[in-house]
């Protein structure tokens, strides 16, 4: 079952959900709006290897090239030891062609950090640090969750893939 907005607020108060910093005005009927963090990973190919240059997002905005993937991150620390999570976009930004992940919407129970976002714009698009960019929903588990202790769980800045990434060419 998916938690309603009021249930998200209740479970956060009970310590079962982490959203930090938190604002009650970001609650939706069945999700919570998170904000974009202040750093962006810009893809570059160096000697045939994919790397991400980490830049600080200017307050007056950063223009994304279309159909390229950048790594962003949530401003908030988000997580839960009790619920599974889904990070999705907001319809207001989907209507402008901004993807927030590349078919990886699942947040595992036990993960708690600033989440890395895979940002792809269908059209040239200007993003701003701290803008309300996406939403997270919380889902009840069936069964006992194991504690999630995988490779990315401690990272807060935009974190590139830990798979050995070698581009065939640029």
């Amino acid at each position, binding site marked *: 079952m998916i938690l309603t907005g009021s249930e998200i607020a209740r479970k956060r108060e009970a310590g079962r959900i982490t959203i930090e910093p938190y604002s009650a005005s970001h609650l939706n*009927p069945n999700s919570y709006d998170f904000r974009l963090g202040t750093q962006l990973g810009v893809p570059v190919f160096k000697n045939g290897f994919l790397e991400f240059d980490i830049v600080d997002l200017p307050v007056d905005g950063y223009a994304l090239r279309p159909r390229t993937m950048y790594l962003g991150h949530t401003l908030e620390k988000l997580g839960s030891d009790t619920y599974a999570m889904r990070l999705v976009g907001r319809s207001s*930004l989907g209507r402008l062609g901004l*993807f927030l992940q590349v078919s990886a919407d699942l947040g595992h129970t036990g993960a708690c950090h600033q989440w890395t976002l895979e940002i792809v714009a269908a059209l040239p698009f*200007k993003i701003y640090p701290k803008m309300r960019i996406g939403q997270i929903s919380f889902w009840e588990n069936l069964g006992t969750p194991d504690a999630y202790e995988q490779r990315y769980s401690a990272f807060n800045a935009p974190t590139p893939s830990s798979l050995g990434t070698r581009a065939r060419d640029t």
Partner: protein
Amino acid sequence: MILTGTEILREHKRHKIKIDPFDPARATTNSYDLTLGHDFIRYREALIDPRKDNAYDKFAVGAEGLQLVQGDFVLGHSAETIGSDHYVPLIHAKSGIARLGLFVHVTADIIDIGSHGHVTFQLHSTLPIRLYPGMAIAQVTFWKPKGKIVLYDGRYQGSRGPRASEVHRDFVRSASSESDVSMTGRDPSDSPRAKRRSR
């Protein structure tokens, strides 16, 4: 928990799920098929800036359909009005559409509980594709919520046809604050019948 097709039919009959027009044959094992409407929106900006009211063209398409080029982005809409005050709808592409490389939403699949209207499709083509009004393009699933329900009363309530983004209204309130561009509360003009401007 996700509703089965038979449960969608039952809850539609009990008015806990609204789908109009409704055709029981469109219910699948776990979802209900949505068809593409006639109206579309295409943005006219060289750079989309969520802080401003981005200009767009709205146009209708007949039986000849709409040709999308590779990498295109347009807004369409469901021919059906859908919504529920009891379940959370999620939007998905039909797999046959996805296999042609067409996104029907841009990572925004959740519909708020209490939101009723035409669904705006966020159509992004990774291959050239021609779309025809009336084709089954997407499917909606219904999920059981847990907790007290507060119904949606936002800016896109009661949508007819595709609705362009109104995200620029997020930024109005905090225009005086350079360090924080997020909205700190709901825009007071977020009413179901808020003014619309089509340019």
